[in-house]
């Protein structure tokens, strides 16, 4: 089966600009996760969806980050406006349902200058 797809793979923007990342989970996976991985650290969960509903967004900086999964399939993560400290790899993962193994996409490497 196809894995988790993410685009773009790389993005360079200036601070205060906006950016959006896209994720298409594995077909049939109900749960979708967005993680932020800053260089030298482990991934940190930003938001978790179960179908099209949010399960956990406690670590999402809601003043500048937003995410949606309107039809319960693919998802978009947006940053507006970006700050220098947002430079990181943004990983998307999916699982068949909560508690099951998570499968990760290749990530989007964001550089904010």
């Amino acid at each position, binding site marked *: 089966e196809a894995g988790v797809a993410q685009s773009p793979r790389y993005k360079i923007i200036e601070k205060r600009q906006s950016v959006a990342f896209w994720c298409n989970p594995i077909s049939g996976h109900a*749960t979708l996760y967005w993680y932020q991985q800053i260089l030298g650290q*482990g991934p940190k969960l930003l938001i978790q969806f179960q179908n099209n509903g949010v399960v956990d967004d406690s670590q999402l900086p809601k003043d500048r980050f937003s995410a949606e999964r309107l039809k319960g399939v693919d998802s978009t993560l947006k940053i507006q406006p970006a700050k220098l400290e947002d430079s990181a790899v943004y990983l998307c993962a999916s699982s068949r349902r909560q508690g099951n193994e998570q499968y*990760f996409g290749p990530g989007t490497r964001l550089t904010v200058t």
Partner: protein
Amino acid sequence: AQSVTQLDSQVPVFEEAPVELRCNYSSSVSVYLFWYVQYPNQGLQLLLKYLSGSTLVKGINGFEAEFNKSQTSFHLRKPSVHISDTAEYFCAVSDPEGRDDKIIFGKGTRLHILP
């Protein structure tokens, strides 16, 4: 809240030598434990997981890990490493009694294989 400590940020090992990557987690009544591997410019891939049962868990690529409840550890081992094992390794924990299946990751250990 659960937390994970990976004691070594980098581990250099000669090819064909054994390796152990250390991981300790904060104490809890029950835990699920994971090791993930991240090759350069790729996402994370599950190496192995402990959910219950036997404390010795075997994973892919010849890796294994042992759950030690008394020492709250879940160290990863491989008897003989290969150059292709060069990657970053993340230990992770989740709470099976929790409301969600949030996984908490350690900071990672970079494994350098020396020729």
